[in-house]
């Protein structure tokens, strides 16, 4: 199984923001287990919410799906960090997780660039959702929210790939998939 090495950019970030990271034993096996849980729990929840939002077109459901997808991506990035022996400290917060994700996925190959940049903007949107400044300041459209939901799940796929697992792109809620989607039968945890 693959054990990822930190990119030069991530090492640099960890040096620059030493107080925002905590060293932990590098544990790729636990990281893979965490990613498996994300697939079984968070991504499934995203699909349920997206499906209901797609059928009823209720903005609140799209918002919930977006939050779940963002959280899944954030936990997936945390899993990659665990595999290389580091955790984001409490003082770092989501901002540092995004910076770490950029340090991991912005270097080539360029195919991963789109998902991680979308994740950075999704953090912003999630922050606005959580702490709305005023009701009129909805800076995101439904169109962008749906695209971000998809890209966050693709980022989970990028993290899985980095840890030597299959991608989970069949869980990306595209219109075609949402039209045909049905809740899978429950499977026990590994």
């Amino acid at each position: 199984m693959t054990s990822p090495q930190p990119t030069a950019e991530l090492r640099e970030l960890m040096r620059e923001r030493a107080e925002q990271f905590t060293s932990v034993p590098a544990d790729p096996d636990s990281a893979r287990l965490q990613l498996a849980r994300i697939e079984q729990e968070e991504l499934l929840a995203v699909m349920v919410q997206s499906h209901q939002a797609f059928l009823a077109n209720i903005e609140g459901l799209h918002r919930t799906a977006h939050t779940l997808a963002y959280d899944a991506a954030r936990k997936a990035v945390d899993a990659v960090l665990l595999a290389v022996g580091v955790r984001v400290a409490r003082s770092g917060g989501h901002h540092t997780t995004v910076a770490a994700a950029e340090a991991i996925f912005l270097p080539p190959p360029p195919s991963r660039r789109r998902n991680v940049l979308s994740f950075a903007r999704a953090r912003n949107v999630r922050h606005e959702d959580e702490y709305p400044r005023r009701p009129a300041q909805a800076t995101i459209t439904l169109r962008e929210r749906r695209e971000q939901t998809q890209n966050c799940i693709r980022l989970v796929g990028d993290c899985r790939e980095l840890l030597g697992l299959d991608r989970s792109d069949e869980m990306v809620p595209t219109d075609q998939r949402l039209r045909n989607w049905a809740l899978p039968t429950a499977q026990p945890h590994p």
Partner: protein
Amino acid sequence: MGAGFRLAARHLRLILHFLKAILQSMQTLFRSEVLQQLLTLLYLDHEISTSGATVRQLARRIGTSEATISRDVSRLVRAGAATEERAGNQRIVRPAPDGPLAFHLAGLLRATVGPEVILRRHLADRTDIERAAIFGSYAARAAGEPGPPPGDIDLLLIGDISFDDGYDLAHAASRELGMEVNPVIRTIEEWENDDTGFAAEVEKRPTIELKSPPA
């Protein structure tokens, strides 16, 4: 006639003296690229302008030696453009917010190497963007509205631009500025038919127009 000439000559001498003083200050402040980068970090980087930075952190950000930064910091402190504080064997450097130069210096840096200049450069030749503007707290502070220093830049992009390209542009500008740029991306149709109140709110508050649709 003679008295008038003497008065004019005296005025001219005063003006020359004044210009010389300004030039000396400017030479101190902008004598090298490192010094200019140092000022830009101190005055335009949100984190450093509010919390300060050690000489080591500044050297790392600029990509030069600590000795060079240490020497230039001393110059800025003498010129009244920065303050320093000792914490153990570290020097914590901050902009001089109450110094006579601070207000004009921040304006000068914004106008020469600040976000507007950098964003306009990134927007040049973009045919997929009809209108681009800075809104939110950065635009409000630039218009003179009181408040805390802006922590990020809200950037409105209207046109046929894809989300991917918009995020890419914002990311490249953020890297250059050392400040987060949050892109808000709309098609012309979405902007014109906005019924959330967001477009109306942006239009009635201060903005810095970076690119306008052709008249």
